[in-house]
């Protein structure tokens, strides 16, 4: 099955040849641009990723040649548009290795996916006195929806602690799974630290107690091959814009058995089978959760991004990024007064750091002057910042199109920061 999928996703026969970063970079128009007269060094990929020409073309081609609403017209354009939208769902299914196409719900992004589950599954199953278990390294979007749900229901939000290296305390996590736990929501990869959580193990622990698990895959999908069946997760969410696709589109995967039982999130057109004033019958999956005209172009753009990633190869991406991460870590260690936050044994290519002499904002500003884009701030993870007693960090987050030379430029610019502010 897997082999067939790979053939159809168009991995070239030279898949095992050297990873040609220079060639890949040429696929990204924005990487050819300059900032303040210097070549753009884009190291803010955890915030959003850049888009290959293939994605830009897919969007333009859709609007130029196929644009029509889906599931509505009997005319040829509408059929073509519906087919293209459906093909995108198919690509997503294969990309995360889900069983059924109807288990793929298009959303606006990770945030909407989590809110959908909180407002449907959560409201249906969580009662007063129950518990929802998250971790200390969650993004705000995997904290607040649960907090609001708990307040509404009189339930309790529990937070599994992390260690000083930024790893989840797995034993504490296991202890915090109790007879009251109704749901676990955990990030696969921390956006602020890069830590990769042992989600398969965590899911096993939760399932042993009959507790379903939502995995926030926003930061995992750009770096790791995903197999939701192997993980065994009940829900998996991610955003298109972080995997080289457009903004405004995201994915919620849910096991069909669970999705079937869940009430709709939003109601309106497309999500119904029939409407009468005395009774409305909801449509089947996935349409039940896709009320209104969806982001058709966005889904098609995401499909194009997935084709592109399949072409590059997630395994080769992971290998290149592992090398970059190691090199980037060495570069940062070589600079006086730099401290890296997040030293988990298993990390994605995220380098979060602070400097003795300069505040993250000043670092970010100085790097911008060199054409280097990093994020400086709390990364929508304020509880995590508090855990490490820092107001903010500077974060360089890498994608497969980044290079050692860019990390050298980062190192050089940071040395300058040290000189100016030290």
């Amino acid at each position, binding site marked *: 099955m897997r082999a067939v999928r790979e053939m159809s996703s168009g991995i070239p026969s030279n898949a095992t040849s050297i990873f040609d970063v220079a060639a890949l970079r040429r696929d990204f128009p924005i990487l050819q641009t300059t900032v303040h007269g210097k070549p753009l060094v884009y190291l803010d990929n955890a915030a959003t990723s850049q888009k290959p020409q293939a994605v830009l073309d897919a969007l333009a081609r859709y609007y130029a040649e196929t644009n029509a609403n889906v599931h509505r017209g009997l005319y040829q354009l509408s059929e073509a548009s519906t087919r293209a939208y459906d093909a995108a769902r198919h690509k997503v299914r294969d990309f995360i290795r889900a069983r059924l196409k109807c288990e793929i719900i298009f959303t606006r992004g990770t945030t909407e996916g989590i809110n959908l589950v909180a407002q449907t599954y959560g409201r249906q199953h969580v009662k007063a006195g129950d518990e929802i278990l998250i971790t200390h390294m969650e993004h705000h979007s995997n904290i607040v929806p649960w907090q609001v749900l708990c307040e509404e229901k009189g339930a309790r939000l529990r937070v599994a602690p992390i260690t000083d290296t930024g790893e989840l305390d797995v034993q504490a996590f296991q202890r915090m799974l109790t007879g009251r736990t109704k749901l676990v929501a955990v990030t696969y990869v921390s956006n602020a630290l890069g830590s990769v959580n042992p989600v398969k193990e965590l899911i096993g622990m939760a399932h042993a107690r009959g507790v379903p698990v939502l995995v926030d895959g926003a930061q995992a999908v750009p770096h790791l091959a995903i197999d939701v069946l192997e993980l065994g997760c009940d829900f998996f969410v991610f955003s298109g814009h972080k995997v080289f696709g457009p903004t405004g589109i995201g994915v919620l995967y849910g096991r069909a058995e669970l999705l079937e039982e869940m009430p709709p999130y939003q109601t309106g057109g497309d999500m119904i089978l029939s409407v009468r004033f005395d009774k409305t019958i909801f449509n089947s999956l996935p349409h039940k959760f896709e009320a209104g005209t969806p982001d058709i172009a966005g889904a098609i753009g995401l499909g194009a991004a997935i084709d592109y990633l399949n072409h590059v190869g997630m395994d080769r991406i992971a290998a290149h990024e592992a090398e970059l991460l190691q090199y980037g870590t060495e570069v940062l260690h070589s600079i006086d007064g730099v401290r890296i936050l997040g030293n988990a044994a298993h990390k994605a290519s995220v380098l979060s750091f602070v400097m003795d002499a300069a505040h993250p904002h*000043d670092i970010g500003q100085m790097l911008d*002057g060199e054409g280097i884009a990093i994020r400086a701030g709390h990364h929508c993870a304020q509880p995590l910042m508090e855990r490490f007693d820092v*107001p903010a960090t500077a974060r360089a987050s890498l994608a497969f199109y980044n290079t050692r030379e860019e990390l050298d430029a980062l190192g050089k610019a940071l040395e300058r920061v040290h000189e100016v502010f030290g």
Partner: protein
Amino acid sequence: MGQSNRALYEQVILEHNRKPRNFHAMEDADRRIEGHNPLCGDHFTLYLKLDGDVIADISFEGRGCAIAKSSASLMTTLLKGKTVREAEDLFVQFHRMVTAKPDAPIDEKAVGKLAVFSGVREFPIRIKCATLSWHALLSALRGTHSSVTTE
């Protein structure tokens, strides 16, 4: 560093960032106020001692970026001995300067030493950093709140 960054990070700013003046708590302060910038996680506490309508003593502590910290530091050096009215007037001039267009002329006489912050005009996002301590000060002088935030 880039041309505009050189204009932003004036030597005076870097120097105040390294060695902030009046950077300590004040046990016997008459007024104490917190200033937050939740987006940056910046957080300062400002202390004031008033003698009638004269600022007899002023100090601050906390953490933040170079612009926020040096602005607070320079502010404390300029306001000791000034009246409330003079402090307010200086803030009006300062605010006018940092929010002006990048090429607007600077009224050196009106803003005095604060002219070192004119580079902020090119980075509107840093206006909040430069004015955080001033907003805290005004609020403390008016005695209306115990904390201010930029958001």
